[in-house]
């Protein structure tokens, strides 16, 4: 998903993350996983692109900053 405008930031809800790692597989420059439980870690909240479609828990998206 390409972001809609310059003010858009990536948002994730870590509480609902199931640690599937699909975000890391698709966009490793934006996402990482915490070692202790695999929960998502946001490396870059203003990337030009990422693939939220792959997140099985549907917890990643764009928001207006």
């Amino acid at each position, binding site marked *: 998903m390409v972001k809609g405008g310059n003010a858009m930031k990536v948002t994730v809800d870590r509480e*609902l993350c*199931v*640690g*599937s*790692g*699909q975000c*890391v*597989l*698709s966009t490793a420059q934006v996402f990482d*996983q915490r*070692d*202790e*439980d*695999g*929960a998502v870690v946001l490396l870059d909240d203003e990337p030009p692109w990422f693939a939220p*479609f*792959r997140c*099985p*828990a*549907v917890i990643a998206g764009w928001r207006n900053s």
Partner: protein
Amino acid sequence: MSTDTTTGPGRPTEIPYYPMERSAGCPFDPPPELRDLQARTPLTKVRLWDGSTPWLVTRYAEQRALLADPRISADTTRPGYPFATAGIRERRKIAQTFISMDDPGHARLRRMVTAPFTVRRIEALRPAVQRIVDRLIDDMLAGPRPVDLVQAFALPAPSLVICELLGVPYADHDFFQSCGKVLVNRDTSPRDQERAQNSLTDYLERLVEDKQAHPGDDLLSRLAVGQVATGALSRREAALMSTLLLVAGHETTANMIALGTLALLRDPVQLGELRDGDPALIAGAVEELLRYLTIVHTGRRRVAVADIEIGGQVIRAGDGVILASEIGNRDTEVFDHPDRLDGHRDAHGHMAFGFGVHQCLGQNLARMELQVAYGTLYRRIPDLRLAVDAAQVRFKHDGLIYGVYELPVTW
């Protein structure tokens, strides 16, 4: 779920039985009747072994939406849950694990075992998996021909890997593999299911106890020391979770390796490309084989906890819902020429591992194992071929997980 007929223009009055049978000459394709249903409607009622009539969701978009919908429950203790067999219904009573729970209970338990399955940890395991795969191929090459690829390679490879990851002694593999075979067969009796589940849970409970006293660097030890010793889990709960991981770690990847090899042997061009060993191409082919084969072939099962309007129908609270990913992964709306095995397509959107919060915990391990297995076997045995007539290969039509019973090969 009490209606016996579906009404409306152009609809048949008979509720179809699920699961349907594949066509004899097309062992890689979904049942023709299932394909017809998908063409006709995104969801419809079907009849199960126990006479119940849950919804069958046939199309990708609706399956994906429902699997991510919090109004859909995986809790097998809820009335209306559409069990695949009587055996599974009985087994769930003695073996409730996070795959058959909703959040927050599901999330709490799943997080206890997520750490070893992160992308980074699985990647770190790749050299060890490569060594296991190479050693099994060494043994095959040094042994007699023909050989059954299932017994010589497809089953021991993931078995050795999951044993190392969990901390289960591989020497006991005859025992736990025979239990696993009972658990994934649709035709085993409730009594046999129960017996196999209990033997396996007892065995793993003893192992967890042993790990509490002598912890190692493995998942069972982590559970024993981090969860059981602190009182977060009982030893029995830890053992139940371990049986789930042990069985899931065998039956899925093993069937993918053998069934995938059979599919590729019919397609020399794609097999040749895998033999050349380009990692990106192998990774893409793995996704495509996961989509094309969809070995979890009798649907993901759920029950609605509220009324849900979808696909022109209303699923009522308490209705059983079956998401048939085996046909969702062949949806022409999502995949061009879906019945074609094409390693060059982008198959990443497939639902072979499910979708939603229950999506397969071991998917990154499975991917890596399959990349190593497919990426090594055909390179090291370039003239690998079937040792019997293709028509003689026996498929697991009666399995909860699809595959082949044996795959005699030679070279």
